[in-house]
């Protein structure tokens, strides 16, 4: 009954706990609840974005345009807020998700209707969305003093001691866990990742399912566009530059197989947390932040090695869990 799936998430959780404990040995305040909640809040954006990327990677595709989508959407809502400070922020939030959804759907249509490989499509739209951000903004920044108090305050508004940004992360994580394990869409995502040909025979429209995955990642990226700008109180063309690779890294560390079909929402969330803990721990234990990239690079390589080992040994997850329930 001990499925690979559980094994991986336990392994990652232990790694995170050991990391936190190790840092706490040097600086006990690091493990204080307040600080840990802070670390979680700082990781929330990566966690949310990893959910969208995971949905796409499961279908054997990849979305390189998420960070560019985030920057474009963030810029648009920030400019709307700067121009019309009275425009209700919750509506802006919905608008951000919708704009992101549109951008994601554009990727999805190209992948679905024209059968262009996702990596090529999103490589193209990555540069298109970034460039459009510049066109929209004229290269100017939207600064803190141009944003309304509500716009900035929403992500900071605390409920039960936790900022709303963290609550967003938790809500989206739960939504994705349900989506992945309890709905037809979730099952379809896994099915076409594991065996697209079999999925077709099972009546799943592969192209349409990929389209839905891209819509999901787009909407997530758009939502994070607002959250990012509100969190860091700046909208510029450069925000989240190169971040698409961090998002993919979080998924890979969390056990999502780049070959599709394997991975869980909870695992991807742990992958994001793992990176978040590393980032927050470095300055605490007096390692210069310049080490951060090399360490996360090493973590990614180790995670891939680990993934490859376990995939070869245990086979694909769904088969395994079926065997588990039978036996």
């Amino acid at each position, binding site marked *: 009954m001990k499925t690979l799936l559980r094994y991986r998430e336990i392994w990652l959780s232990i790694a995170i706990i050991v990391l936190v404990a190790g840092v706490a040995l040097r600086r006990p305040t690091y493990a204080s609840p307040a600080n840990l909640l802070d670390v979680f809040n700082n990781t929330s954006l990566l966690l949310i974005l990893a959910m969208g990327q995971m949905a796409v990677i499961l279908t054997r595709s990849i979305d390189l345009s998420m960070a560019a989508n985030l920057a474009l959407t963030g810029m648009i809502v920030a400019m709307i807020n700067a121009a019309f400070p009275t425009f209700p922020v919750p509506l802006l939030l919905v608008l951000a998700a919708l704009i992101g959804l549109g951008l994601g759907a554009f990727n999805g249509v*190209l992948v679905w209707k024209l059968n262009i490989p996702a990596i090529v499509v999103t490589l193209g739209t990555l540069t298109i969305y970034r460039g459009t951000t510049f066109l929209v903004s004229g290269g100017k920044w939207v600064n803190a003093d141009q944003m309304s108090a509500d716009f900035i305050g929403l992500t900071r508004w605390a409920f039960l001691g936790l900022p709303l940004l963290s609550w967003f992360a938790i809500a989206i994580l739960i939504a994705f866990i349900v989506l992945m394990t309890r709905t037809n869409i979730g099952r379809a995502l896994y099915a076409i990742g594991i065996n697209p040909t079999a999925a077709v025979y099972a009546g799943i429209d592969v192209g349409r399912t990929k389209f839905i995955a891209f819509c999901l990642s787009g909407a997530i990226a758009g939502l994070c566009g607002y959250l990012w700008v509100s969190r860091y109180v700046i909208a510029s063309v450069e925000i989240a530059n190169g971040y698409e690779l961090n998002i993919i890294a979080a998924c890979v560390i969390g056990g999502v197989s780049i070959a599709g079909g394997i991975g869980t929402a909870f695992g991807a969330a742990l992958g994001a947390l793992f990176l978040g803990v590393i980032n927050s721990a470095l300055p605490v234990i007096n390692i210069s932040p310049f080490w951060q990239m090399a360490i996360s690079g090493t973590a990614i390589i180790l995670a891939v090695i680990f993934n*490859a080992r376990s995939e070869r040994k245990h086979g694909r997850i769904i088969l395994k869990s079926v065997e588990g329930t039978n036996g």
Partner: protein
Amino acid sequence: MTETPTPRHIPNRLDSPLRSALFSWEALLILVAIAIFIVNSFASPYFLNAWSLSDLTFNFTEKALIALAMALLIIAGEIDLSVAAIIALASTMMGLALQVGVDTPGLVAIGIATGLVCGAFNGFLVTGLKLPSIVVTIGTMSLFRGLSFIILGDQAFKGYPESFAFFGQGYVWWVVSFELVLFLVCALLYYFLLHRTNFGRRVFAIGNNPVASRFSGVRVDRIRFTLFCLTGLMSGIASVLLTSRLGSTRPSIAQGWELEVITMVVLGGVNILGGSGSILGVVIAAFIMGLVTFGLGLLNVPGIVMSIFIGALLILVIALPIVYGMLKRSRA
């Protein structure tokens, strides 16, 4: 690569009606290039002169050098996202050597050797440990650039010797730059390697069907390893040129180049899923990207807006034959 169910059906441009009719992919690219050239020369009075056209080549030669090797790698069904990070690390190593007084020949050797070692490291991870190249090189990308950041911090190495400047700034003959000549020579070499040798045929074979290739006696892993070494080597060479052109080393050097190199390769008609492509296409695509960025530069279009054109070009050029094929089929 990790794509689509029945790879042979999908975007196989070799079968596209457009190609089997009048045009080859390369011919299409040449038309695009000529069109952009004409638009450029009308759009700006400063475009059509020898020095401008020479300057234009500096826009793409360093990336195009890597694209040559990357084309082979992608044809073989792999990918290397760490090339820009290799440039940074090789440049950093040259900077370190400079601090201890190494002169130009030594600097060049160190730059190229660093690239080769990084490429071999990627090759080992992919072939030795049987890992997917796309994630391995996302990892090594952070690792290599991370090492540059660790070594350099937020400072820069400057003060490269006078003679070192030749590689990135020198001219071989009047307005013909050393970079351009080197690129053309390398393009010829890669053309022969890919299209005229057994090695090249095996690269195609691996990209089409690695398992069948292995059973027919192709040493798949050895060839893949060699290809990673080649991309590393070319990144090392590109690092020498770029460091020499900029005259300094910074850890953030060549940021984002990996995607531009891959765009160049894909625009050049190399199937991202492996198995087909040509060096000629990549060379023309390199010139197209140079023309687009340089032309827009003359019109004072900021760099980031140019990327809209490059991205749209990439999608359009690839989508056109597919849409054309769909229309033709729906009419029949």
